């Protein structure tokens, strides 16, 4: 199966109905995906960024035939996911962060071998690939360990291996480096990049919460929020959108109600704030530098003290904040928008 487009969606939608009992007497709908159009060519490493509940996992579930769309269509490798799911499955695999699959009493090798049998792989090929991949993720010495003895990070490494073991044409990685240490994450990212880079027929759809991961790995990135794609382009082009704006990072002593303080200031397009090590970090996206003095005045008026000020090049996180209105990390940042901004 080869197709120019590895993944294509056309007005793809997914609506969940919440039962009356759970919705306090009224049946209501949750729109998880709202008319999503995507085209991912074969050979691309494509990133999907979005906050929790944005629709990333729902999209992956539809593309991996776990979930049926409520509207629109999707094709993986040129095959309609709803009409011919078995054919799609022959060419894909999926790895999720925080997976707990497998059987505790079996060893790493045995679990992995079992999964290869579901793809019809012969034993010799499976074992050879397993050895290579376990070496890459640093789990070769634990191949004969029962998985209930593994730590969370080691289980995730095993899951990672499971995804690549069948050598799929299209691989879905849903936060694959979750729970892994820095060194291993770095090694795995290099592996993912190499795997796609060296093979023109391999495609990866990656979701992540780590901006640097998306910037490092992805040929293109889509930002999804509330079930809709807000932007889709190369990381470089996305950052260029903000280049006509100015990005400042200020560190100040704690101030009360920053949203109220900065929301109405002229020239402030977006800002976000986070408490870090006892002080507050404020990131501003401004129309131009003239918007800065009123910000400093406002900080002084609320009895805050400026600790540091830095002008930055826009990052993918800034693009994200400018589009979504808040930071990506859980509990990390809160954000505000100037009046009239989306």
């Amino acid at each position, binding site marked *: 199966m080869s197709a120019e487009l590895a993944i294509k969606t056309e007005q793809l939608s*997914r609506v*969940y109905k919440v039962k009356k009992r759970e919705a306090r007497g009224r049946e209501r709908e949750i729109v998880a995906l709202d008319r999503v159009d995507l085209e991912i060519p074969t050979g691309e490493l494509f990133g999907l960024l979005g906050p929790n509940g944005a629709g990333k996992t729902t999209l992956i*579930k539809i593309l*991996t*035939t*776990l*979930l*049926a769309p409520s509207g629109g269509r999707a094709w993986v490798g040129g095959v309609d996911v709803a009409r011919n799911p*078995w054919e799609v*499955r*022959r060419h*894909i*695999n*999926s790895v999720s962060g925080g*997976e*707990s*699959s*497998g*059987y505790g*009493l*079996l060893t790493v090798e*045995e679990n992995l*071998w*079992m*999964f*290869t*049998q*579901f*793809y*019809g*792989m012969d034993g010799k090929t499976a074992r050879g690939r397993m050895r290579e991949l376990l070496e890459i993720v640093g789990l070769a010495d634990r191949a004969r360990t*029962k998985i209930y003895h593994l730590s969370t990070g080691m289980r995730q490494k095993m899951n990672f291996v*499971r995804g690549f073991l069948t050598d799929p044409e299209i691989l879905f990685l849903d936060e694959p480096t979750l729970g892994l240490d820095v060194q291993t994450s770095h090694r795995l990212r290099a592996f993912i990049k190499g795997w796609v880079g060296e093979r023109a027929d391999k495609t990866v759809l990656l979701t992540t919460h780590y901006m640097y991961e998306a910037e490092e790995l992805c040929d293109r990135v889509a930002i999804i929020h509330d079930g809709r794609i807000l932007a889709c382009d190369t990381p470089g082009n996305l950052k260029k959108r903000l280049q006509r704006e100015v990005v400042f990072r200020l560190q100040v002593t704690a101030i009360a109600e920053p949203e109220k303080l900065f929301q109405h200031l002229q020239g402030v397009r977006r800002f976000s704030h986070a408490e870090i090590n006892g002080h507050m970090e404020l990131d501003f996206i401004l129309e131009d530098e003239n918007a800065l003095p009123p910000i400093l005045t406002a900080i002084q008026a609320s009895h805050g003290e400026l600790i540091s000020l830095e002008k930055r090049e826009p990052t993918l996180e800034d693009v994200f904040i400018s589009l979504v209105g808040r930071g990506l990390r859980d509990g990390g940042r809160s954000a505000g928008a100037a009046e009239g901004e989306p």
Partner: protein
Amino acid sequence: MRLPSRWEIFWRTVMGRAYPRVVGMQRERSWLLFDTLLPLLQVSAFVFIYRAIQAPPEFTGFVVLGGAMTAYWLNVLWSMASQFYWEKETGNLELYIIAPTSLMAILLGMAIGGMVATTVRAAAVVTVGLFVFGVRVSIVSVPQLLGVFLLTLLALYGLGMLFSSLFLLYGRQASHLSELFQEPVYLLSGFYFPVRALGFIAALGASVIPITLGLDAMRQLLFPTMMAQFRFLDVRIELAALAVLSIVFLWLARRALNYMEDVSRREGRLTVRWQ
């Protein structure tokens, strides 16, 4: 690169899924106690009930046979019917679904893998029954006996596959559904007494459960004299019926599994946990 055929994937899946069952049992052997000694004691209770009410010795044989078959019924309920529910809870079900394999192959692998422990349990009950309780059998026909046993298992596991899709689709906490089916089936299938005691119509209705006919036929082939007054149907009719049930259940299971997958995908239930 050549992709494997459906047939190859099917058989490799069966072996792959049977493997954890076979190996798991070797690695944690407490099942030898729970699945052999304890059920033996439970069966013995029914033997002593019959002794207390001075039943003919053949009734001990009826109980022993029924006790042996409970092993298979419980295996079907707990290790097949509820299984996809447990697989969903542990995150394995979604990996099975996205693999290019068949859920029937997965279930068949589970059945074959679980058959070892189940057969050990059944064999323990029969062996103890024969020696400790002094059960005397007069085998009418070994081929017929084997045929009945194998067809009963085939139909039974077909029913188990059918249940696995229904439990997943309709069952929250599938363990309760499995519990719900335990005692009523012990009653209706005549595990501990000849099913004819229920009356012909009730016994006919109960025949949809393969063990009903299987037990009755096996009792006729092992205790022909006593069963002459208690038999339900002729052994040949029961054999034929079991063959039909096997085909019907396996066909229905296939349809139900496909339907289950379709509906679960539409309603987003394949990955919802802790129901």
